[in-house]
């Protein structure tokens, strides 16, 4: 009986000294933004709860590692530089977010992952594991169990505009009835259907194309869900060839890709508006008489 009591006491002592801090991933978005620096701006990406009794005045550091699915460590926190955290004395969980768990300025990446991060701010597309363990602030000995979660990274690629192709000259007689717009879908396939907002802007003779896009009201502003083609009936009479500026009636069009909450599917790439690179098309109203295109 004495041996049993001694054993229980020993287990209790070991447990209380070896596992004083407990981590629990409350939130980990399985498909977080590919841009790692963006994790810190988003509360929905990562939340870690820390509870328990810490050593040395309830203080600890977080040893964070990112691994590939075969267990290879591709990044680890530089513990000499990472911040020190203190557990809540009330016993309430300490809430930690992405910037606390994975401070990019103190993460050391290796090999091609380092190169990729420096050049693109992203890791190569694929599955990864993030692991976090509480450690002592002086000798970095473990203070609790390691917690790991899987996530998938993929760069969102905005649609490429396909038709009308760049600088296509269209016959006014055909364009007056219908113009077909086509574009490639957002890659990779998104968890919810993408809303494609197609916009067509008239470029006035005194404007540059991008100036028109950034300043004019669009002649077409239509949202299309999960389809990559739209047939537009312009219901317009195209202005004749401008003898003063020697320009054909010119239009610029683009696609804005929106997610289920009506936000741009990517806010970290390019213009931040989820707008594809716009392209031009021209309408030739006098094709049968005197084809001219001086643009």
């Amino acid at each position, binding site marked *: 009986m004495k041996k049993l009591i001694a054993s229980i006491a020993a287990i209790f002592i070991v447990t209380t000294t070896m596992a004083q801090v407990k981590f629990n991933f409350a939130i980990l978005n399985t498909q977080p933004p590919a841009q790692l*620096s963006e994790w810190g701006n988003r509360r929905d990406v990562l939340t870690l709860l820390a509870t328990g009794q810490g050593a040395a005045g309830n203080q600890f550091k977080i040893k964070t590692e990112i691994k590939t699915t075969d267990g290879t460590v591709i990044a680890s926190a530089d513990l000499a530089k990472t911040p020190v955290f203190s557990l809540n004395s009330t016993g309430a969980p300490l809430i930690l977010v992405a910037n606390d768990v994975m401070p990019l300025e103190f993460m050391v990446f290796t090999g091609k992952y380092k190169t990729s991060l420096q050049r693109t701010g992203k890791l190569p597309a694929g599955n990864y594991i993030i692991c976090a363990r509480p450690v002592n602030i002086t000798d970095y000995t473990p203070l609790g169990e390691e917690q790991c979660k899987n996530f998938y990274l993929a760069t969102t690629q905005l649609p490429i505009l396909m038709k009308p192709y760049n600088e296509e000259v269209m016959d006014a007689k*055909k364009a007056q009835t219908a113009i077909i717009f086509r574009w490639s879908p957002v890659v990779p396939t998104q968890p919810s259907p993408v809303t494609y907002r197609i916009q067509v802007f008239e470029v006035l003779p005194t404007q540059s194309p991008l100036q028109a896009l950034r300043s004019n009201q669009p002649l077409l502003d239509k949202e299309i869900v999960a389809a990559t083609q739209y047939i537009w009936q312009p219901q317009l*009479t195209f202005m004749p060839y401008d003898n003063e500026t020697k320009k054909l009636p010119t239009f610029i069009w683009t696609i804005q890709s929106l997610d289920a909450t009506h936000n741009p599917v990517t806010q970290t790439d390019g213009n931040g508006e989820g707008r594809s690179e716009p392209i031009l098309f021209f309408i030739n109203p006098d094709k049968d008489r005197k084809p001219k295109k001086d643009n």
Partner: protein
Amino acid sequence: MIKKIIACSFFLCTFVATASAQETTDSLLDKLKDKAKEKVKEKLNISGTMGITYEGYGLSRSPSGWTGYQPRRPWNQVRFIFTPTFKFSKNFSLPFNFNFAAIPTNFAGPYAGIKKPSFGQFITNPMNSFGINPKYKWAELQLGTQYLKYSDLSTGDIGIFGIGVDLRPKTFLFKFFTGISQQGINYVAGPPVVTGAYKRKNWMAQIGTEKEGKYLFALNIAKGKDVPTSAAPPPLTIRPQEGVVISLVSDVYVENGIYFKAEGAQSTFTKDVATPLSPVLKSLKPFIEAHTSTLTDYAGQVAVGKKGKKFDLGVMVKYLGAGFQTIGYPFLQSDKLDYTLNTRINAWKNKMNIVASLGQRVNNVNNTALKAKQFIGNLNWFTQFSDKFSLNVNYNNFGFQAASSFNPYGIKNVSNDLGINPTFTFTGKKIIHLISMSYNYSKYDERDVLTGLTTSNNTHTALLTYVPTYLEKEIAPDFSILYFYNDVPGAKITLATLSAALSMQAVKKKMRLRGQLQYTLGKLNSFSNSNNLIASCNIDYKLTKKLTWATFLTTNYYKYGNEIIPNGANYTETTCRTGFQYRFDTKKQK
């Protein structure tokens, strides 16, 4: 509304009065100068234009309260243009470029949604330009709004309000410009929502050597930096950014039409200046210090070819690294490799003209898992077989393929278009008959990433145009009939359009008139027909040699079939654009 119209009328009247007074002054000056012609040699030369245009838009929807069709133009807009160039001597010129509008209509970009701009926001709004570029010999001072293109990979798409120089002594080249491309704009939750923007400061410089038509070697540097405190409340989805791009350009043209163009560039771009500074990432001091969101990547393009009277051939390769980003081209889509082969052939005594291009674009270049490939092919073949018959054939292909992450099948979209356009011309004693036929077949295949099944979207378009040209009359009518049919699983769209137009001159050829009527009958699946009638009219009246009054009026009536609720929904929209343009022309004074 009435106040606006009165104000616009006042502006228009004032403009006409001013322009007429200007003209009267011009003619008096002409007479005086004619008299003193031999004594005084006038050197001032003014060219260019100035004008004012009013645009009005109206939309009436039925039944009352139905909002299924949204307005697509501003209700009222007044645009001003003032672009004279004063040439004081052979060496000194003073061009103005003032283009501005009274009401902001920004829908995309930093000014989207703004309704009551401050003076600074008005000046830097991309819908307005206020530029003056005095030039003396090889030195140009750049003041106000400037759209400066230094190169394809450094800067060129944005307008900046500021100050700079463009100096070209002999073959040397030195350019510098600094200013603001956008003001701080506060976020407004709306409605209407204003996304907001940070104030952006820009600097750019170019140094090099150039001999026009022979060679260009230049080093470019362009920088942009947002001011994080310039918007309160700040934009929710936009981050304050900072970027620097350095590029080296070289163009060489050889006498026999051979050319070589190349540019290499490096960008260092911070996506969010609020992120912590990073000792790990590369800085480009003194231009930019690295944050954890800083990227450094490369881009390059090379074009080699030969241009001739009968034959052109060129190859172009363009690479944009995934992290390449420049403030000067805000919509540039990076992470791609393009290579294209272009050719143009003129044969058969220039009666045959062939233009073709073939190429491939690879997106997600460094990312094998999601690499996307697009094949691009275009051909346009025109042949004038005789005075009476010509034929144009065109073919376009655009294919897109990519993996789709977790789905069993990859993305595959292929667009094919074939067009055939024969034209017949018959010449009589008093009339020339032109009959043009056109048929287009467009096929769009799209693979479902879950089932692997491909759906085809087929479109047929047939157009017949008749244009009689009267050799002894001042009228020019044209007539056309068009049939459009689109077939995709679940939807069949048929459209038939009849169109007639008439152009003529009147009032001793001072007035040009053009009217057009167009009726379209549409049908979607088995729903009842939709109807669309468009009537438009252009009137250009030359009030004097230098003053023109141009008016465009159009009305569009559209009635839906029973494919939408409420049944019988319809709308009528009207557009009126009228304005005066005065053309400066003092060449006679020389």
